[in-house]
């Protein structure tokens, strides 16, 4: 069997297959539903976000946490600096003592 004849046979055997009509309709409906749901979710989400953001900004109860967090962070950093300075000081004095001996 020559190659050209085989290619003709392959074209006959491997024909494009038409998708069933019901599938096409189902898929299109599904895309439309996803798209609509997403659009409405997005707009609800945007509205809710703005309102909740405004509310939390206005509420003084929510100001305490950031202030405490910043203060705790500052204290921790200060403690680390003090610790490091003392460590270096101890190293320096022990080196001096070694030299004197």
């Amino acid at each position: 069997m020559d190659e050209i004849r085989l290619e003709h046979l392959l074209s006959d055997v491997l024909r494009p297959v038409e998708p069933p009509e019901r599938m096409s309709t189902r898929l299109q409906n599904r895309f439309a539903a996803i798209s609509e749901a997403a659009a409405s979710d997005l707009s609800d989400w945007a509205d809710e976000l703005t309102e909740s953001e405004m509310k939390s900004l206005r509420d003084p109860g929510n100001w305490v946490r950031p202030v405490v967090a910043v203060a705790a962070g500052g204290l921790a950093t200060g403690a680390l600096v003090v610790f490091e300075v003392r460590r270096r000081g101890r190293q320096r004095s022990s080196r001096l003592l070694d030299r004197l001996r």
Partner: protein
Amino acid sequence: MSDVEPETSGTTDAPPETKAEVDRGFEQLYRDHLRDVYSYCYYRVGNHHDAEDLTEQTFLQAYRHYARARRESDGRPLRPWLIRIAHNLAANFYRDRSRKPQTALDNIEPPAAKHSTEAVVEGRDELRAVMEHIQELPEERREALVMRFALGMDNREIARAMGKSDGATKVLLHRAIKQLQERLEEAGHG
């Protein structure tokens, strides 16, 4: 379309597309290539039920990444990308369900050119033999033949869909046809 990736990492200077534009583009892609994707899936799984399932999954996945694919395609056709999605999903389909592809014989009809009853029977036998031998080819070769003959894809498109170079694809197709030819000759269909 919350699943669609946001238009934030553009690779071109073009302004970002609106959601409506992306949706319209996808709808066109779907209309243009539904038959291609379905045909590919059908020849991969061998039955209409699973082919429908796989086609649906392919388009749903494509829908999620469409905006990015369109940006990154630089105007090249997206059919290879769609077929690649279907290819990956089909691979998972077999792995997850431990299935084997079935022979897609429902589709075979004798060539239109034959007229006499004898010729029709002979033609049908020949086509059946071709189909059976296609099923026995290594998966990659079988897929390349499906893309070429059922979908009418050229070498470049097949290469993109399979993640190969143009040269490697040309060799793959050549070997697939050669192997099929040899098997048919061995089976007395010379």
